Each structure stands twice: as C-alpha cells, then as structure tokens.
C-alpha cells in the first residue's frame, strides 16, 4: 500500500515537472498556428484579386495570442483591414515571445534573412543592426504620410546619423504611483518637493510600512530612481551629456544624485531585500498594499484601471504623482523619464521594400487608433483625448505627456550594451551600498570611455 501511494506520488511529481517545463513553450506553437491560419486565410482572399502583382510581406512580432491576447488581436485586425484594402498583398506572420524573439532576430541577421517587417528596440539594441546595414531608413515616411503624427522627439531614439530606422508604436513615461489609503492613514499628501518626499519616507518607515516597492534584481528598476534624481538635481542635459561623452559622470550633480540614493536606502526607503527581488516580486509588495509607493512605467496602468483580475477597491486607492523637484536643482516637474518601447523596422534587403514601407505606415496609424482604447497601450503617435473613451488616470497622464518639457530615455537604453551592463550593475551596487557615489561615477567613466573608443 505504502509502495503504491509512493509510486503514485512519484508519478505526480514527474508529471508536475513536465507541466512546469512544458508550459513555457506550450503557448507558442498555438500562436504560430493561428498566425499561419490567418496568413493562409488571407491567401485565399487574394485569389480573387485584380491583376496587381502579388506581394507577400513577412512580418515578425512579439505578441503571441496566449500571453498578449489584445495586442495579438489588434495586429491581426490591422492586417485584415490592410489586406482587404490591398487584395494583392498577403502578410505572413511569425510570432515569438520576447526573449525568443531577440534570439531569433540575432540568428536571422547573421544569415541576412530578416523578415520584411519586424519590431526592434530603440538605441543600443538596434545599433549593431543599423551598423550592419540591415534596416532601411524610414525618413521618407516621416516626411510623407506620417508627418507630425508622432509625439515630439519620440523617433529620436531610433535615429542614427540623422536617419531614422524605426517607427515606435509604444511610448511610456514613468510616474510614481501611490496608495491613497496608506497616505490617508498617516495624513500624508503627495509631495511637491523632494524634502516633502523624504518626510513621507520617514513617516512611513517609522510606522513599519515599506515606503517604496522596488525589485532591484532586474536593476533597471533602480536605475529609474537614479535617473529622476539626476534629472531633478542636474537638469535633463547633465545625464544625457555624461552618457554621450560630452559631459562626465563626475559632475557634482550626478554624484549628489547617487548619494541621495544611498540616503534613501539608509532611511529604509525601500522594501526589505529589494536587491534580491525581481520587479514582479517588488511590485507584489505594492499590489498587496504592503508598500505605499511604486515607480514604474505607464505600462502598469491597466493594473490600476482596466485589469479585471485586480480588485476594484485596490484600483480605487491608487493615484500617481510626478517625481518631486529638488531644492536648488535644475530639473522641473514636467521633465519625465521614459521612452518609446518597440518600434517597426523594414529590412534593407527586403524584396518588397516599398510595399513593406506602405504597410508600416498604415500599421503605425491604425495602431495609434486601436492600441490605447483596446489594449491600454499608449502609442507613440499623438492621441486626441477628446475622441477616445478612457479611464481618468489615462487621460490625466496623456495630458501630462502633452505638456511634458522633456522625456529622458532610459539610461540603459541610451548606453551601448557593455556600458549599460556596468551601469545596471553599479546601480545594484549603489543601492546595496557596496560602492560609494564617487566610485559609482568612476566606474561609469571607465566603462563609457572604453566603449566609446
């Protein structure tokens, strides 16, 4: 009997292991199947087309039906709309998850077989592709169909040597979300100045509440805090210049920004063990109302507005404030940290380059109409808030976006890969108090100098 239950439980464990290992890949073939199905579905509609030359555009994107259902649906809707209007065109999709997508891009690029249309990340990520002449410049679109459609400055992150190689479809800025219920309990108001902010941190931590939720295993999460302090103390140009080598990380305002971080850590400003927690684990502290504040991109907005899995009472408790200004600092309240997410590229060696460009232009415009109302994704194209029906928090943030004085691109995206790694590691070390603010600056200088050679 004992033996039997044992074998049963062993079998259960084995199958559990299989399920656990299996589920990571499980959703993907299904997504590809549907992609193929839609592609072949489109193929049948083309057969009734007029004599125009048949064109097949290959497209790769990173929103599988399993994990990003709404984005996947929007992509399919746009494709359907386009192929109905242009019956000679078929669009063949290939869908991969984020990491697999990155890997596949790398593999395809070594054999020079990139899809006609695909997505890329900005700045540092696309640098080797642009240098390798794999992406086509899209400036003709920006001067033509898409003139004045984008929020100012959002395409800069995709520009190299005066040419733009990608068109962003997402734009995110980073506010500080806070829990109104916790603030009310301790009689706190959203801060306008950094001193007020520090007082809030003190009050909360002396009452045993974690002031700020942070998961710094992912490192870019902590970088956001450093970037804001650098912006508010040194103004938006100081950090940018330090990164592009016209300035330096030894700048007193950047060193002070780093020392403000260590002070926040000393004040127990962040939840316990943040350096060992992933962003999701850090976020959980905020979602469980254990921590009072959380700084994160606007991609989190659905969790506080439309996401049905989050209890309404919690959603009602969440507000946001802009990162407060520092006394005597050069930055202003309307300067944001943020940046475009993924953007569309057209392969330089595509056989159907013109058709692909036309499709990309169509896609960007349609995406702007659908993305925010259907998926809660803020597009990089301008949104007319009077026309779309949106939760109040979206409207507030979109209005903030319209009057933004500056958007500073995420530091690790601005830097080239090796310096970005040093920056991220140094952020973790700074938060863990393993380096002093001066060493922090020194390591940045070394890495950036080495890579800019």
């Amino acid at each position, binding site marked *: 009997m004992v033996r039997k239950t044992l074998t049963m439980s062993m079998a259960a464990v084995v199958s559990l*292991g299989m399920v*656990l290992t299996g589920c990571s890949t499980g959703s993907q073939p299904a997504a590809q199947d549907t992609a193929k199905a839609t592609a072949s579905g489109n193929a049948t509609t083309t057969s009734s087309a007029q004599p125009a030359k048949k064109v097949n555009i290959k497209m790769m994107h990173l929103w599988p039906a399993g994990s990003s259902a709404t984005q996947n649906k929007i992509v399919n809707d746009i494709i359907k709309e386009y192929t109905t209007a242009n019956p000679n065109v078929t669009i063949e999709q290939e869908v991969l998850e984020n990491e697999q997508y990155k890997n596949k891009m790398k593999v395809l690029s070594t054999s020079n077989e990139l899809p006609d249309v695909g997505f890329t990340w900005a700045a540092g990520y696309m640098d080797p592709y642009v240098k390798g002449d794999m992406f086509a410049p899209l400036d003709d679109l920006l001067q033509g169909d898409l003139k004045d459609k984008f929020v100012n400055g959002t395409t800069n992150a995709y520009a190299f040597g005066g040419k733009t190689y990608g068109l962003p479809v997402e734009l995110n800025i980073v506010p500080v979300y806070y829990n109104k219920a916790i603030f009310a309990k301790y009689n706190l108001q959203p801060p306008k100045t950094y001193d007020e902010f520090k007082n809030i941190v003190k009050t909360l931590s002396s009452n045993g509440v974690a002031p700020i939720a942070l998961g710094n295993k992912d490192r870019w999460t902590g970088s956001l805090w450093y970037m804001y302090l650098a912006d508010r103390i040194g103004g938006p140009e100081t950090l940018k210049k330090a990164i592009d080598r016209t300035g330096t990380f030894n700048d007193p305002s950047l060193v002070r920004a780093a020392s403000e971080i260590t002070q926040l850590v000393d004040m127990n400003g962040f939840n316990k*063990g943040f*350096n060992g927690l992933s962003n999701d*684990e850090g976020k959980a502290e905020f979602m469980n109302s254990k921590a009072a504040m959380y700084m994160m991109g606007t991609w989190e907005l659905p969790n506080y507005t439309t996401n049905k899995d989050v209890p309404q009472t919690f959603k009602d408790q969440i507000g946001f404030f802009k990162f407060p200004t520092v006394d005597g600092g050069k930055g202003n309240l309307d300067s944001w940290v943020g940046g475009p997410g993924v953007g569309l590229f057209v392969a330089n060696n595509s056989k159907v380059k013109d058709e692909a460009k036309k499709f990309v232009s169509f896609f960007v415009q349609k995406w702007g109409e659908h993305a925010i109302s259907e998926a809660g994704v803020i597009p990089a194209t301008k949104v007319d808030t009077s026309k779309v029906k949106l939760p109040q928090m979206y409207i507030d943030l979109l209005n903030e976006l319209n009057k933004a004085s500056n958007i500073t691109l995420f530091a690790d995206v601005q830097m080239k*890969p*090796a310096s970005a790694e040093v920056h991220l590691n140094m952020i973790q070390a700074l938060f863990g108090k393993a380096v002093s603010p001066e060493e922090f600056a020194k390591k940045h200088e070394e890495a950036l100098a080495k890579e800019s050679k």
Partner: protein
Amino acid sequence: MNKVMSNKSVIALYVIPSLLLILALIYMPILLTGYYGLMKWDGVGKMSFIGLHNYTELIRDELFWNSAKHSFLLAIFSTLSLVVYLIVALVLSAQIRGANTFRKIYLIPMLLSSVAIAQLWLKIFHPTNGVLNHILASLGIEHTPEWLSNPSIVLYAIFIPILWQYAGFYILIYYAALKNVPSSLIESARIDGASPWRIALSIRIPLIAEVMKVTVVLAVVGSLKYFDLIYVMTGGGPNGSSEVMASYMYRKAFKEYDFGYASAIGFFLLLICLVMTWLIRRATVTKDSIQYS
C-alpha cells in the same frame, strides 16, 4: 549474430550516424567556439580577427576571476558534500527499515526541473514572506538575513539549493555501487566479529573507490560549468556577488553582445574542466584496484 558484427561495413553502418551527429553537434561547435574566441564579434555584424587579444584581456579581467573563484568554491562544497552523501548511502544500504522510502524521497529533487526548484527556493528565501525568515523570526531573531540580496551571503545561500538538487543523484549512485558489494564478504566479516564501522571502512568503501573517483570528477566539472539555478534565482547579482563562470559568459554574450569574448570564456572554461579532470584522475590514481574475491 557474431558473423554480422565481424563485418566491418556493418559496424560502420551502425557507428557512423551517431559519430556524425556527435561531430556535428559537439566537436564542431567546440572548434568554432575556439575560432570565435579569436574574433571581435558582436553576434550580428562582421567578425574581425584580433588574435589572442580576448584571452589576454580574460587573464586580466577581475570580474572573470571573481566568478571563477565562486565556481571553484562551488566545486569545493560539492566535493565535500559527497562525504555526506556517502554516509547517507551507507546507512540506506544497510538493512534498515524504510530505506526504500528514504531513497525515493532523496531522489525527488532530481526529478524537478531546475526552474521549478529555483521558483521554490525563491519563495523560501523571500526576505519578508519566505518560510526560512518566518521560522527565524519565530525563533526570536530580529534582523532576519536578506538571503539573496546581501552580497556576503548570497553565494552560500544559493549553494544550498544547488547541493540539495544533486543530493539524490549521488546518493543513488553510491547506493547502487554499495548494493554491488558481494554480501558474502560482509557476512563473513560479521562472523569474524567486525563492527559495522569497520565493515564500512575496510570493505564497502574500498570496493566502491572507482565509483567515488567518478563522482568527484562529476561534481567538480558539474560545478565549474554550473549555470541554471544561479541564472534564474539571482542572475549573478547583486553586482556580480553570485556570478559564476558560465553566467558571466552568458552575460558577456547575450547582454553585452560581445560574442568573441564570451567564446573565449567558453573555450577557457573547457580547458579548465579538462585540466581539473586530468588532475583529479592523477591524484586519485591507484596501482591496482582492490579486489577481495
């Protein structure tokens, strides 16, 4: 049957497919890695030949040697833990009640995938909600450790699940080897009045010496190239304090897009493993294997 097997072309027919596969999938990539190690290559664009530059840089790379130190620490700990596994196996292979059940319990961690184990231990090590800190707090410890974010303990914290993961594997190997020791030998020793301790030291352990050598090699080489739990649980952090050679190589290749340098690390890692294997085999060489029957 013998006739078929003595036919050379038949032997070739059986051997060649797998030989080709091994050549194509294992030896070719090794050679290619060595070749890429001589290149400056970001993984996307063109390669350019830079000779041994990557290797000279590697020799001077503090971060690499730091990660190498961590890898060797892991190797030492896994070798030491073999002693514990041997004792457990000795106990299990004696005729005690429930040995069978225990053997299965010890084996269970091996059946779980590494990622599942990592998730499990992440929960255990969680600084505020984790089981471990809950227990410590209930024992009255005020400042419970931050297991995975304190640079001075993270490495040792992460060794625990790694050792735990492989315990069953080594216990099983020792158990199987001990079961192969002829029971007549043990029987006669017992009749001669030998204590269980004496039997273990003079009969059972010497007879499985060969197996023990193999496990030492497995443990050392396995530790030197260890990657998965560390990658999932800390990613080598905070700030490289739990980085090992393989995770450092991964970081160089896939985060910094320095494939040339990462290939150099990979090739160097291979050399270290080969040298260590050779050293261990040499250190444990015996003139002739012990035989009692």
